[in-house]
């Protein structure tokens, strides 16, 4: 568990759901609220969300597995979301991804020390200043492997602080 998220318990999960505004008592917003609080959607939470929204576990699982961003395992301390879409391809993200694989971790994998997840995303809306990555919630433009390593280091400090 990372310090940017709370530790899961059934009671804590129920509390998160109970604080949802009435018009967000739907499957996706409920799962997002759980993930926002705990960093992921624990297996145990699926049935709790289903019963809270009054839908089947199957429907809830269906939503959980549809959206790329929803996850069922805890994230690393730092998440690097590297844009792999066309505008960043045009400025060399394919070769950058290879450098990132060396310097941090291959796209779609966790660094060997377990502290950084590198995930692919499609478009961060910074298409004139690519390649682009989000490091946790911080957007970084004209990214190089070196600048990404620096951003990861400062994000790591932020998490531990």
């Amino acid at each position, binding site marked *: 568990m990372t310090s940017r998220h709370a530790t899961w318990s059934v009671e804590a999960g129920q509390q998160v759901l109970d604080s949802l505004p009435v*018009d967000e008592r*739907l*499957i*996706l*917003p*409920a*799962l*997002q609220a759980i993930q926002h609080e705990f960093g992921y959607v624990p297996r145990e939470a699926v049935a709790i969300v289903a019963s809270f*929204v009054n839908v089947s576990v199957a*429907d809830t699982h*269906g*939503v959980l597995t*549809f*959206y*790329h*961003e*929803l996850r069922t395992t805890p994230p690393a301390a730092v998440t690097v*979301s590297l*844009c792999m*879409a*066309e*505008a*960043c*391809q*045009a*400025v060399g993200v394919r070769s950058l991804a290879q450098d990132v694989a060396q310097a941090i971790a291959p796209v779609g994998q966790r660094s060997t020390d377990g502290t950084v997840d590198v995930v692919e*995303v*499609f*478009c*961060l*809306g*910074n*298409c*004139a*200043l*690519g390649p*682009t990555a*989000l490091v946790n*919630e911080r*957007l*970084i*433009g*004209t990214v190089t492997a070196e600048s990404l390593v620096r951003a990861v280091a400062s994000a790591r400090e932020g998490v531990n602080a």
Partner: protein
Amino acid sequence: MTRVYVPRDSAARSIGADEVAVAILTEAAVRGIDIELVRNGSRGMLWCEPLVEVVTEDGRVGYGSVSADHVADLFDAGFLTGGEHSSRLGVVDDIAWLKDQQRVTFARMGIIDPVNLDDYQAHGGLRGLRRALELGPEATVEEVLTSGLRGRGGAGFPAGIKWRTVMQAQADQKYIACNADEGDSGTFADRMLMEGDPFTLIEGMTIAGVSTGATVGYIYSRSEYPDANNTVREALAVAYERGVLGSDVLGSGKTFDLRLRVGAGAYICGEETAMIDSLEGLRGMVRAKPPIPALEGLFGKPTLVNNVMTLGSVPAILADGSAAYQSYGTERSRGTQIFQIAGNVARGGIVETGFGVSLAELVETYGGGTRSGLPVRAVQVGGPLGAYFPADKLDVSLDYESMIAAGGMVGHGGIVIFDKTVDMSLQARFAMEFCSKESCGKCTPCRIGSTRGVETIDKIREGVDRANNLVLLNDLCELMTDGSLCAMGGLTPMPVQSALRHFPEDFQR
């Protein structure tokens, strides 16, 4: 006291605007100078961000590509009074790149403090909503109709017809749903409006609400846009506090409630029916039409679904009248389009201008060619589902009809430039791969077709039975175009076939 502007736009922040802002405040304090620092939106000249502006007697003087290290130097050069410096760009409003544009929807972009409602009103904000409340629903919808405004999300459907359909629908509840799921690579206009002038979107949606009879609106944004979402939340709180939103819109007695919803990383949710499913908290599955959302949309109720740029253009149309808006553009493509120049480009950013500008002008005159300095080889227009144009065919006019005639589409106005190192067979492969990753899976041509597309292009690239596989690929593209339920599968062949048509040599290596 001197006023200094440093953008809060996330593109500017991505290359150091926050550090520049801190450095300016620190340096001013050290030197004992009183300044007022305003975090504005971006002017859209992303090639010279972070762009610092200083208010002088001559106007707002700009200093481009400023880094925190240069700040002390700028103070020494007397930048607070517009002093000479190598980064000085002159009076920002006089810079040709900006001056030659026709800014209508983006009129306030980069000029105001995005979450200051007084600043917004001082620059013409809320005039459109006030006029709509005076005119009443029918006349407001008529204005939108006669303005010629068409859906800016990509489909280009006449906005006024949609508005009239929702207005005339009888129901106990109607909704406005703003599609802010700007997933197309090469597009960032929605994000910039949400970050740089969110009240324009709020005003446009409120006009839509009070004129169609919808009392609840949703902005469906993306999780990839954390800054935009935070700014919209801030602006919504101000709009409620100041009575722009809520149970008595500007004292009219009309109700309009507006909320922000954020997606979870699914490109397909930019398709309007998938977005509606997602707003209902479900998997973003495409629905067959009819029924059209205008009659049976969110929770089965009449729902007006428009893109950020469409709704964001409405305040200007109402404020200055449909005739003024009509005067921009060509034939059936009226008004302005917010083009976004991206990818391998020397001067990327936002160019808002009337329809009919040529692709060459955007790529060469505004864009200044590639960032790498190598020759332009291909330009993709309209997002991942748009066509690739070769460098010798950029003289096409950017309007809905001309683009279709040229085998492409305007889409959301994104223009992605590639230099001569691009491998077009790899770009074609990516189009299919992207579709296979992002397909909702409901219809077979899209779900299976895209997977087979990747495999077939791999065979072509490896030289396996090339002639037959090229025939097969074109056949598959035709099937996907004709047989898919929505534009995701239906338009994925566009980049693939344009690559095949214009760059056949890349499939023969």
